């Protein structure tokens, strides 16, 4: 290929360089009905799964059709989104904070044709390109991270488990039969780029083996003190190691029983990878929330310590999630988030009803605050 210059001159990088201009201004992209009625919306209604109407003081209405987005999108797919927007929405659209796509129209007539168009589009192999849904008391898109597509620290994949899970939960993406909204999130390592720590259900990639030490290269590739100080449990110390050929090298010694596999050392030093085919897998967390509705935001709790990475469809993980949602759906009160339900019935009941085993791994033993998760009352259910 021939290098095509944008006009950038490597020898004069500062030559008419433009910096610090920030993002484009939001209002350039508002559809007219939004621009006109911004700040004067009166109320909304969800007309059917995936279809919202918002009514403004002016009497204007904006109809929103929400479709499930695969956030890992090709330019071809984005162009197809643009085609749809041009055809139905005067070229406007938006994305939600959970990576769904929203097409907005300013009159009711325009809704059905738009829906028909969206639902009609499928990938060659048969999956929907733009399934309508993800509103109200249902399941919406799973926020997720990079996984094996692009990151160096994952303990599981992101797009794969998400596709597998959304296939299993698809009916609830297109329905609103649940007691409350159900937010499932995935993070492929505990850096938790998905910020899954406050989700109704969280899928978390986790390592279970201490770093594998590449002693021969470690001192060349890493700053030993930086790596050591990165360890939250002080499981690392400097030391000399003898290689097979007998040469002694400076390196890092792992106190394995003190390691809880967070991978923070690897972030600092590539010569101590944690990834392992059987060691890595998925932790299931549940009962978190972000909203301040009724109850305060809650952290998700670890309810399954480990599922193996069963590519391509992670059946144990998806079964467990499906089961929890079904039990919650059958047992909870209207408006009750999964975590509110679990706290009301008591976690002992949660494990019983969801048929999950309560293993020692689930008892907090990390630092002082662990104490506050233990039970300091005689109140419990048999």
């Amino acid at each position, binding site marked *: 290929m021939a*290098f095509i*210059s*944008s006009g950038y001159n490597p020898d004069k990088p500062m030559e008419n360089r433009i*910096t*610090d*201009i920030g*993002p484009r201004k*939001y209002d*350039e*992209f508002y559809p007219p009905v*939004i621009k006109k009625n911004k700040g004067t*919306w*009166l*109320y909304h*209604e969800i007309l059917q799964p995936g279809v919202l109407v918002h009514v403004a003081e002016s009497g204007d209405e904006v109809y929103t059709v929400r479709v499930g987005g695969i*956030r*890992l*999108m*090709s*330019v071809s797919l*984005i162009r197809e*989104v643009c085609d749809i*927007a041009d055809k139905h929405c005067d*070229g406007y*659209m*938006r*994305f939600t*904070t959970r*990576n769904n796509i929203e097409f*907005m129209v300013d009159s009711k007539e325009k809704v059905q044709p738009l829906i028909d168009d969206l639902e009609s589009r499928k*990938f060659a192999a048969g*999956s*929907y390109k733009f399934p309508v849904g993800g509103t*109200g*008391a249902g399941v919406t898109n799973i926020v997720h991270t990079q*996984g*094996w*597509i*692009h*990151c*160096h620290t*994952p303990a599981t994949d992101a*797009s*794969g488990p998400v596709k597998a899970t959304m*296939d299993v939960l698809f009916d609830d993406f297109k*329905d*609103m039969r649940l007691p409350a909204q159900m937010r499932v999130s995935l*993070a492929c390592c*505990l850096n*938790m780029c998905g910020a899954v*720590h406050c989700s109704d259900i969280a899928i978390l990639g986790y390592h279970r083996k201490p770093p594998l030490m590449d002693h021969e290269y470690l001192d060349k590739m890493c700053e030993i003190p930086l790596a050591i100080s990165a360890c939250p449990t002080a499981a690392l110390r400097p030391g000399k190691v003898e290689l097979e050929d007998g040469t002694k090298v400076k390196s890092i010694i792992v106190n394995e029983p003190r390691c809880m596999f*967070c991978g923070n050392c690897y972030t600092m030093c590539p010569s101590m990878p944690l990834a392992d*085919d059987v060691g890595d897998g998925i932790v299931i967390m549940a009962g978190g929330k*972000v*909203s*301040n509705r*009724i109850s305060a935001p809650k952290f998700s709790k670890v309810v399954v310590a480990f599922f193996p990475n069963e*590519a*391509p469809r992670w059946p144990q993980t998806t079964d467990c999630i499906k089961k929890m949602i079904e039990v919650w759906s059958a047992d909870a009160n209207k408006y009750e988030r999964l975590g509110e339900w679990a706290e009301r019935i008591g976690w002992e009941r949660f494990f019983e009803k969801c048929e999950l085993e309560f293993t020692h791994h689930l008892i907090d033993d990390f630092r002082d*605050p662990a104490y506050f998760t233990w039970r300091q009352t005689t109140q419990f259910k048999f």
Partner: protein
Amino acid sequence: MAKHETPLLDQLESGPWPSFVSDIKQEAEARAKNEKGLDYQIPVDVCEDLLGVLELSFKHGRTHWKHGGVVGVFGYGGGVIGRYCDQPEMFPGVAHFHTLRVNQPGGKFYTSKYLRQLCDIWDLRGSGLTNMHGSTGDIILLGTTTPQLEEIFFELSHNMNQDLGGSGSNLRTPSDCVGEARCEWSCYDTQALCYDLTQEYQDELHRPAFPYKFKFKFDGCPNGCVASIARADISFIGTWKDDIPVDQEAVAAYVGGELPPNGGAHAGRDWGPFDIRKEVIDLCPTNCMQYADGKLAINCKECTRCMHCIAVMPRALRIGNDRGLSMLVGAKAPILDGAQMSTMLVPFVKVEEPYDEIKEVIENIWDWWMEEGKNRERLGELMKRQGFQRLLEACNLKPDPRMVQEPRTNPYIFWKEDEVPGGFKRDINEFRKHHLR
């Protein structure tokens, strides 16, 4: 015919949910066909090789990406994440696979014109694969080679008037909920504030001067649709001071069943006729509501603005009119000490351009954090290590019970010498006159 066999990935093409595998495959084909006859600036088979390396990970159960070296654009410390494949010979198309973070517009509203322009640049100069959007909020351009970075930045800035987002130890790309643009519950203009602060702090965003990353997120109300309380160093969450306006007719309409509770969000199941007592009054966390002979009464002084009643009866109840926001600070993911949610620092502040009051708090926080924070110590961790009091001092804010859920249970108060009459200096001999050894 595909470059690599992908039997495992192929199984992810079935099922109703959009298949990212099918999409990458269609992109791979498009590049192979190259109908527009582009002179692709990175390997044509980048998508095939990405599928290949991903298939290998599915087989191994391990990632095949290495740490990214320091790559980026001149003068910026962020916006690019370097990435290299650990099997470059097998997958030359993704040997270098860096991502760029493009600062998304507020509310993630777009025109097709803008997106097509972006696609054209990325088609030519990158993998043609993106994330719409990254977890922080950026548009992620997923995978290109080092030489293309400056070119892409040049085209973005010159042809699209568009800048990169943040990465590294600096201000990360702020993001917001849809807010006033399309939501009746927004207590302030999330897009306006998000945009103003993003522009104001461009230098902090592009040039790492912080101990670690720092994030702003803007929620228009306590529902938290951008989850700021869970994942922003400063969470700006809308709220109000005055009463919840009540439209008694609409209340009657809900009770009468003419209006769907919760804007129809529960229409998928027959929950029986709407029961205002069970569904609203009894669920109010502060028990400040009463429903007697057809009238709804709210003792708003005791309301904590949880949004429940408003959510259930959006046509009868609205947010108040004396609006502003709360600033909560210190949220972060679990590394190293366990996750933190943001803690209430400023219960209420008006949101008025040029937002000086808000900026003063932000800058006081940064001064303290840059002064006291250790390398890779998030604000929340510093707050834990030095104590909430230090933060209050740094911001010259008065202690307020609204900042805590409950007062301390331990009496271990670190009295300062100037708070105690006579200070700490005492004379042992004087003491021993009264207290023999």
